[in-house]
């Protein structure tokens, strides 16, 4: 094969693998990004069984099912080949995503609605568990030795770009369903949320067409022609000490820390901006979109660099810098979004409305909180909602000790603060590019061809699905346990990242495998 045709082939391989993987991430993220809207449609809070199904849908798909998907499809990939396995995961993901957009709401078909959504979400999780390992293996097995990190890093951009596209499609749909924004958001919440799910089927159709035209990985095809394909990939991967020790090393010395840094940089950052800093829906998402856009090229930079200096220290330095600076960066984001030091334009103050809500989980219906909401304008252009809260207790003894308090919500920050926040999110995602850019090449080089798909998929999906996927939830949970410290959620990432850094630094080799053909 000439150099030009080899180069053309590798770019076709990257395009076919990346587009499909990007679509799978897009499909997976839209469910998470629309969780609140979906919950209203399918999981009514007043019904405890539906709420339970909601919890299962959130947890089961993202955290339990992904490693199972890795086992099921990893095994298939090592038995029948990479190409057809990740084609199958793509069809399952696209089909289930499209189907979620078709399921009638709880109001129409009752319990069948949340059950169907839960089932389809499980299929999504399984498919995602099988996709990444196949795509990374497929590209790595086509890539030349000295460019494996560079070429596989294109696959690494897809997870972030999938989030980028899901946020973009959601924001566009939310804004353009009616001429005025309020009606458009109402329509989006009623039925427009289905559109991002339907979009998936078009993307999947294109990707299937591209992937069908690709050939099987040359290394796997060679193994198959020589009759050397593994008879039992699961047993060979996890039943033999020599390979199991490498699976454990990959998990505890690399993917565990990489997963928490990734999910902190992209998902907890968004949750923190929205729920702790209380920035409004649109700004919190566009800040992330800009951060992703500026940082994404660095996946390729660090992936390519890892071909020259090795994978280990790029990943570990990214992890170390991240865990050392998280407290500082998140504190900066919190400080930037406080009203302290701002000058209010008092003549612009506007009364928005008031509401009385029952105190949550109150057994009796007599105690409630009264909220009055004001729109407050500041001289720098920021606009916050000031919420004054007053508790209304029936019992006079309790009423006597109750304090009123004020908090700020629905913050629209000024342009300069907005840019600074984009800068901090960019730094957080830059850390992600360091730990995540070289990891596909690192994992591929750790395992032999005949059981590569199975062996690399499991540590990847435990690291990312379990340790990473749980990050936003555990971090939020920690902030509800330690109410006085709004940054307490970061301790989960810092501790997991620190343990992973120590293991990685001491146990992992920086050697670049010159031959992945064995």
């Amino acid at each position, binding site marked *: 094969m000439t150099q030009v045709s080899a180069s053309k082939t590798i770019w076709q391989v990257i395009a076919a693998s990346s587009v499909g993987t990007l679509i799978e991430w897009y499909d997976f993220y839209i469910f998470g990004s629309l969780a609140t809207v979906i919950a209203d449609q399918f999981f009514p809070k007043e019904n405890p069984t539906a709420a339970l199904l909601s919890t299962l849908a959130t947890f089961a798909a993202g955290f339990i099912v992904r490693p199972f998907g890795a086992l099921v499809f990893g095994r298939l990939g090592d038995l029948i080949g990479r190409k057809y396995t990740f084609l199958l995961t793509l069809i399952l993901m696209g089909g289930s995503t499209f189907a979620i957009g078709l399921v009638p709401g709880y109001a129409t078909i009752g319990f069948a609605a949340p059950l169907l959504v839960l089932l389809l979400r499980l299929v999504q999780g399984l498919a995602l568990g099988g996709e990444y390992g196949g795509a990374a293996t497929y590209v790595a097995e086509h890539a030349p030795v000295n460019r494996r990190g560079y070429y596989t890093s294109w696959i690494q951009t897809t997870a972030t770009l999938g989030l980028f596209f899901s946020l973009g499609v959601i924001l566009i749909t939310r804004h353009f369903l009616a001429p005025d924004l309020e009606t458009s958001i109402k329509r989006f919440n009623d039925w427009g949320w289905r559109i991002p799910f339907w979009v998936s089927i078009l993307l999947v159709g294109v990707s299937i067409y591209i992937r069908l035209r690709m050939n099987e990985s040359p290394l796997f095809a060679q193994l198959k022609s020589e009759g050397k394909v593994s008879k039992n990939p699961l047993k060979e991967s996890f039943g*033999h000490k020599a390979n199991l020790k490498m699976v454990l090393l990959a998990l505890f010395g690399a993917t565990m820390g990489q997963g928490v840094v990734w999910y902190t940089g992209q998902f907890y950052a968004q949750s923190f901006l929205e729920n702790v800093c209380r920035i409004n829906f649109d700004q919190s998402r566009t800040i992330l979109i800009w951060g992703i856009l500026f940082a994404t090229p660095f996946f390729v930079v660090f992936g390519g660099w890892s071909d020259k200096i090795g994978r280990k220290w790029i990943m570990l330095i990214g992890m170390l810098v991240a865990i050392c600076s998280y407290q500082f960066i998140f504190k900066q984001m919190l400080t930037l979004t406080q009203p302290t030091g701002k000058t209010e334009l008092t003549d612009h103050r506007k009364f928005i409305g008031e509401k009385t809500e029952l105190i949550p989980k109150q057994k009796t219906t007599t105690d409630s909180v009264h909220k009055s909401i004001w729109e407050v304008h500041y001289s720098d252009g920021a606009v916050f909602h000031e919420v004054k809260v007053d508790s209304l207790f029936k019992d006079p003894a309790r009423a006597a000790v109750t304090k009123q308090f004020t908090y700020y919500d629905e913050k629209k920050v000024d342009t300069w603060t907005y840019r600074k926040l984009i800068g901090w999110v960019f730094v957080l995602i830059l850390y992600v590019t360091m730990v995540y850019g070289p990891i596909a090449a690192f994992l591929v080089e750790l395992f032999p*061809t005949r059981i590569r798909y199975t062996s690399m998929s499991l540590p990847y999906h435990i690291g990312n699905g379990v340790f990473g996927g749980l990050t936003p939830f555990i971090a939020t949970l920690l902030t509800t346990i330690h109410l006085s410290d709004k940054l307490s959620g970061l301790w989960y990432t810092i501790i997991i990242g620190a343990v992973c850094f120590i293991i990685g630094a001491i146990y992992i080799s920086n050697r670049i495998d010159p031959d992945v053909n064995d």
Partner: protein
Amino acid sequence: MNQVKKWLGIVWILLGPFAILYLIKTAAGEIGKSPDTNTIIQWAVFVIIFLPIAIGMVIFGYYSLKGEYDHLPVNSKEI
């Protein structure tokens, strides 16, 4: 460095059960504070998911203590 790996093996062996005990203790405390179905499910999911991972950590520590990581394979024939 190999000696450090072996000594650290003991740390990883202890870390697995310690992490699970800490998780169960925290789960019990939080379920006690808010004993509704969702809280129980969430914490049960945590414990069920992290239990095999903690066992994996103990195995990792055991291999480390036994010197399995003193030499990492340089080609697939060693696996």
